[in-house]
């Protein structure tokens, strides 16, 4: 991720416009990206500040390139680089030695006179002789542990020049979100992934169901209800790549401008940003995949939707694997327990207890049941795959019960 002083964002009429390099506006940047990658690819053994200077000079005659953009590129390239670190404190030891030796000649003067006879160049040559190294080499290593003077050991590459530009565009969005106070996502798909990654980024949610498989989720942090705060900006930034990998969403973030005003950042899956994360898997398991295949999109007036509803109670959420929606409006949720352990089963039971007023079917593997155990009517027991016939019967039973 970038630092906030590498962020380029313009605030216009309450909207945040984040720096973005696209094929249509900045096609010539593809060449720059290639040349930047080449500098790092061939940069082994060179100092960080030299590499940065070279990147900078690449843009010397480019009218359309603010300094921050150059610095951001340097950061993204450095992120994929391994620089030699002075972990044994060799430079520090050398410094202490050289400075201790030099102390008796202090001050090193340019023009020696009767009182001060230690000429800078002479003494440095003398010290070099004593240490058995040429002075130029000593001077090179004297501060080799300072970030700017570190040398490049390995560059781990970006998959392509285009990938570097894509990464830049996402990184600028992330840096802009450091200013975010709140984020609202309207989503119809990938609900499970969205909630899971928001939780990983330590965000809290407020969920409103707008309609069938249509949710408004507002993300924020604990103190957000108390005051305007940017405490959770980094959390929003961490969450963003996961959201960009999903489909069927639009998002608005409320940002604090440098002048303490408010601005909005609007985004959606149609904006064409490329996340470095892969899109979420269509199915969590082959069990689910085979059921969805057998069922098809629709069967006997029942429509099948993947992870289409969120059950929530304060900060607890549960997105069952499938939603079955009948033409008459009946909705039945199905959660398939595939892989299981006793702890997992009891945890699931606890979660379901919270949502007992919902119509949920649970598919349990026969192996997980104790000998002679009695199951409730909302449990589908299966051996290796879920039988379509018993599923349809269960759905119809629930539908008729409702009436």
């Amino acid at each position: 991720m970038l630092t906030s002083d590498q962020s380029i964002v313009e605030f216009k009429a309450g909207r945040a416009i984040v720096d973005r390099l696209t094929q249509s506006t900045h096609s010539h940047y593809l060449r720059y990206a290639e040349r930047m990658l080449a500098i790092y690819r061939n940069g082994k053994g060179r100092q960080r500040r030299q590499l940065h200077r070279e990147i900078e000079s690449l843009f010397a005659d480019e009218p359309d390139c603010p300094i921050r953009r150059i610095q951001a590129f340097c950061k993204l390239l450095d992120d994929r680089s391994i620089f030699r670190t002075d972990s044994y404190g060799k430079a520090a030891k050398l410094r202490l030695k050289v400075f201790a030796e030099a102390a008796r000649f202090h001050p090193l003067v340019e023009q020696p006179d009767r009182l001060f006879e230690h000429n800078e160049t002479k003494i440095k040559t003398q010290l070099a002789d004593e240490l058995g190294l040429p002075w130029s080499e000593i001077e090179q290593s004297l501060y080799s542990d300072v970030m700017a003077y570190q040398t490049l050991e390995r560059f781990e590459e970006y998959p392509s020049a285009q990938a570097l530009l894509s990464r830049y565009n996402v990184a600028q969005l992330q840096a802009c979100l450091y200013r975010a106070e709140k984020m609202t996502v309207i989503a119809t798909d990938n609900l499970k992934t969205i909630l899971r990654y928001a939780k990983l980024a330590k965000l809290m949610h407020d969920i409103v169901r707008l309609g069938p498989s249509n949710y408004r989720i507002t993300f924020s942090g604990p103190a957000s209800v108390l005051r305007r705060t940017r405490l959770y900006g980094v959390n929003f930034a961490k969450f963003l790549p996961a959201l960009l990998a999903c489909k069927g969403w639009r998002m608005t973030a409320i940002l604090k401008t440098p002048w303490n005003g408010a601005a909005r950042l609007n985004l959606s899956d149609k904006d064409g940003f490329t996340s470095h994360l892969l899109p979420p898997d269509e199915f969590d398991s082959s069990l689910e995949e085979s059921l969805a295949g057998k069922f098809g999109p629709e069967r006997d007036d029942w429509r099948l939707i993947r992870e289409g509803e969120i059950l929530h109670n304060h900060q607890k959420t549960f997105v069952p694997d499938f939603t079955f929606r009948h033409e008459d409006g009946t909705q039945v949720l199905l959660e398939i327990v595939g892989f299981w352990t006793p702890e997992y089963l009891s945890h699931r039971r606890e979660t379901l207890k919270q949502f007992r007023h919902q119509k949920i079917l649970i598919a349990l593997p026969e192996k997980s049941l104790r000998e002679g155990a009695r199951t409730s009517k909302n449990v589908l027991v299966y051996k290796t795959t879920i039988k379509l016939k018993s599923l349809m019967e269960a759905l119809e039973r629930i539908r008729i019960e409702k009436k």
Partner: protein
Amino acid sequence: MVRISNKQIALSFNRGTLLLSVRSPEDDGNLPHIPNTSLWTRDSRTGTLRCDAIYYAGVSRDLARQFGPSLSDEVPKPSRLKWPKVKLPKLRSNQIEALEAWSSADCRGQIIMPTGTGKTEMALAAMARTKIATLVVAPVRDLMYQWHRRILAAFDYDAGIVGDGLSNIKPVTVTTYDSAYIHMARMGAGFGLLIFDEEHHLPGRCRREAAIMSTAPMRLGLTATAERSDGLHKDLDWLIGPVVYQMPFKQAEGSILAHFGVVRIPVALNPREQATYDQCSRTIRHFMLSRRKEQPGYTWRDLCKESGSDPQARHAQKAYHLKNSIESRAAEKLRVLEDIFRLHKGRQILVFTGSNAMAIEVSRRFLVPTILSHTRKRERLAVLEKFARGEFPVLVANRVLDEGVDVPEAKVAVVIGGQGSTRQAKQRLGRVLRKSGGARATLYEVVCENTKEVQRSRQRRKSDAYERPVHRRV
């Protein structure tokens, strides 16, 4: 006292905030009337009430009064500490005065004393007296480690460290403002006393969160100068407590601090530097003038905005940066430095620079040690020790040493470049003025002639520490 049958009111700590919830067999979750309603906000996300942790002391007291045994206060409590042997020097009268003033203000407040008058000793005495889990917040790593050493010396206690890649929370812990901001959500409960060293760092829009997210009832702020140019120091009254003791600067001089003199040395840019400098100035002036003709009220900020798309604006911006780097790195400054080193041969000299690059340049030219923000602990200690023993004649530092890092026995300081704020000036002076023998301390300011730096130097001297500066050429 209201007894609520079967209901349990729970107060807990949640990532820098307090939660108030009802647990009852009926699970209706409805809260009865509570005291300090205005502090609490209903949080639909959790079905509880929520407020900032900073209010913990008052809120928990009032809730306990109203609900008695129905209240279950689950906020982690600070541990009580025992200090079997305390090694602290006897406090001076003004330190005692300050400590008493703080104690009688319910151990919540700010103490303003000039650098070198023993703020740290006073704070350690406060710790010895309160005997409660304490978090010390310092501006930079160096100071954090210095607090660690002072606590070790005073209480024979190895304090925990949060920051510099470490995260070791103990009943007494030291940290930096930046780390406190990041980690307070998880360590906000469990400390009874917060000590903010150089408290003027606290009121920034982000860093203040550290004070807001902590439940600690006792708070002590220390500084030589609380005021900030943005006016936010007013918020310290809320974040820490009122100013309980203030020692004027004049009182400190002569009595506790050494006498000092200020010498300003103007240096000229060499012809090449001057030519580039003037060229840059012209570029900027022309650009601004031509823009203002079209857009009256065109500002530097507009220029920065345009620099992305307008090559001319970018050119002007570059000229500005070049000007700055000429100022701070003028070759002549190194020559003046040589003169000062000649003049004070045999004396310990501190050199402050405006940038890391300049510090390294001085170090490479004269082969003298530096202390930079990234200098590791071992080297830092070795350098400071050898400087204290007189084995190193000079110590070069970037702004790191600005505040409160103990550097004993320096009677001569040189400032090359730097910002023109009053606070920095006072603190830099404090470095040289530490009481040690009767000798007079001298502060040199090396500034470029015919540049903005002269203006900054004048601004610096507005502080009442610089009464009658002596102008002379070395």
